[in-house]
């Protein structure tokens, strides 16, 4: 049974580690649906947020193999209901077309979107939400002709109160020197 999983992979700052990590999915022929990388609340510790579709059995094996990588501190695996997540989408639409119609205000309100930029040729709308929500706005804007569209990978926080700092101080006594 294939499910959607979100992995939070907490790592040291190491060139090439993302390559090693994605290689583990590649070996098992699992495609990555979305990927974002950001620095965490602890300086120097990064997180990869990776969305994949696979089975419970595979995700457990993949998790263990990623955790084995030297600079990986911890891997969390979540199902859909265990996280609060968000994506962001940007839509570039022709100004003239949109202004001709009277639906712009309605659209912005309906989707709780906002306008980031207005120019003589195009305007840029921003919408955050789940994929279905950003997709809905996409469909509504399609009739005006979308010049460019981009959607980010998923970012998320889990629904537990334990944070990385307490995990680190509990499990990983560290000291001195930088490499």
């Amino acid at each position, binding site marked *: 049974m294939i499910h959607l999983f979100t992995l939070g992979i907490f790592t040291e700052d190491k060139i090439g580690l993302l390559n090693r990590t994605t290689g583990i999915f590649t070996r098992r022929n699992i495609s990555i649906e979305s990927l974002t990388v950001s620095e965490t609340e602890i*300086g120097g510790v990064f997180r990869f947020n990776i969305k994949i579709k696979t089975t419970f059995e595979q995700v457990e094996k993949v998790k263990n193999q990623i955790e084995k990588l*030297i600079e990986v501190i911890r891997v969390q695996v979540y199902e859909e209901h265990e996280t609060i997540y968000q994506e962001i989408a940007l839509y570039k639409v022709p100004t003239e077309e949109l202004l001709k119609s009277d639906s712009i205000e309605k659209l912005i309100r309906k989707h709780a979107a906002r306008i980031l930029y207005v120019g003589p040729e195009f305007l840029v709308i921003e919408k955050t939400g789940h994929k279905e929500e950003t997709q809905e706005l996409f469909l509504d804007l399609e009739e005006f002709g979308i010049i460019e569209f981009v959607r980010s990978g998923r970012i998320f926080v889990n629904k537990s109160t334990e944070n990385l700092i307490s995990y*680190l101080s509990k499990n990983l006594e560290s000291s001195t020197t*930088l490499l």
Partner: protein
Amino acid sequence: MTTEKIAFESQAAERSYQQKITGSEAIIHCLLEEGTHTIFGYPGGAIMPFYDKLYLFQDKVRHILSRHEQGAVHAAQGYARVSGEVGVCVATSGPGATNLITGIADAMIDSTPIVCITGQVVSPLLGTDAFQETDVVGISAPITKWNYQITKASEIPEVLAKAFYIARSGRPGPVLIDITKDAQFGELTFEYRKCISLRSYKPIPDLNRDQVKHAAAIINAAKKPFLLVGQGVLLSNAQNELKAFLEKTGIPVASTLLGLSAISTDHPNYVGYLGMHGNYGPNIKTNECDVLIAVGMRFDDRITGDVKRYAKQAKVVHIDIDKSEINKIVYAHAPILADAKDALNALIEYCEPTNHAEWMDEFKVCDQIEFDKVIAKEMFPTEGKITMAEVIHNISEMTNGEAVVVTDVGQHQMVTTRYYTFKKPFSNITSGGLGTMGFCLPAAMGAALGAPHRPVIGVIGDGGFQMTIQELGTIFQFQIPVKIVVLNNEFLGMVRQWQQLFFEKRYSATEMTNPDFVAIAKGYHLYAQKVDKRENLKATLTDWLNHPGPSFLEVNVEQEENVFPMVPSGASVSEIRLE
């Protein structure tokens, strides 16, 4: 990398050198600090600054010049496997680095601690397709435990300390350090502190007593327990603990290919060797036991056969240091995530003294069947050409089962591991997981240098021999005292066997027209002979073994001999064939 925190040994000798030294010299000091006095390698443009400094340290670091970088890395593996130390090899950038790849992959899958140092083009040229530039860090990422590119001389001591620590700790593995030429030329103030921990890396899990108690309860209740021993026992040096556990519980034990020699093959609890060409009893009984105790092994497909029909009736106790191995192939009812030594020590405490004599006798029945159907005619033939089994049996007797035996890959490998009586630990050096032909000759030279007081025998087929045959030059130049025997059947025997059994005897590309191997060995000034008659076999073997220094022997063996028993690919272990 700017932010990674490392803890260093507080009392570790912290050495600093007043004057500035070059990166190249620092590499050599690092090797000496880690106790490395033998390295294998091959020079070239991007590693020349290192070789230039090495010239000044010839009295402290012995460099063995292989004839190909693949030879250097396999030699480092042989050295590591026999000594338990980290093997070190050095190569230049580009083709030098890519020639190491097979050996690195082999070391990864067989958990061998090696550190490979490669030269790299100067850092301003990185990424520009410079002469002999290759992205070896990228190429080797999936087949190294860790790798790193050094572009500044000042990074050398810390990175190399980390490299040795990672290579040898926990489940060992290969580490590759790529060092740009400008980092080798650059200067630094040298300070060395051994690395003893990294915050993101926990090499040895804490033993969980509850897991041990749970496993012990299962073992204590077992009627037909069966223990499988893998290389993990050797890697954690737990031979004595294993023996004590077996003697307390009376449980029969079988070995994987790489676990061979962890327990003496003449130990009363030892019932044989597992896998596709393993013994009859251990394979059959895997599907009859009620508790399967796996220690430091990873249920390779050559062990399990069809995994859907593997030990389904048994409760599985799986001891491994690597969490990703637990439940990877076979579900463990009672996993113990720990170093084999710690786990066995604790199990000894919780397991009751038991006696499984009747169950053990069932293995003896199987042994008799295998002896009658397979072993007798292979080991003691009276007619026809010499068999591989009788060669190995004779060598085993003549060396009293106490030699280090290095094998290549194929029929000769399976025959050697079946018929050699391994009495001492760290005696079986072979390419297991990767199945690398060409491994034996260079690995045997590394093993001979890693175990200078033990006899080292390299058993090779005529196919694999020709993959790294040039290392005869290294053996001659450094007078490395290996005894090499080529079992020549003028076929790529294992592939031919499969063609015979599963491809209706279409011998596609398996026939070999071979050169005069003795003449080649003599060309390298080695003591060399050939034998093809049974009546001359013993005398020639004795002469070959007793010759001081390196010696070479070619044995012409039966051409179309098959290795049995055999679990055909895709079959269950209980469907093992005897003919």
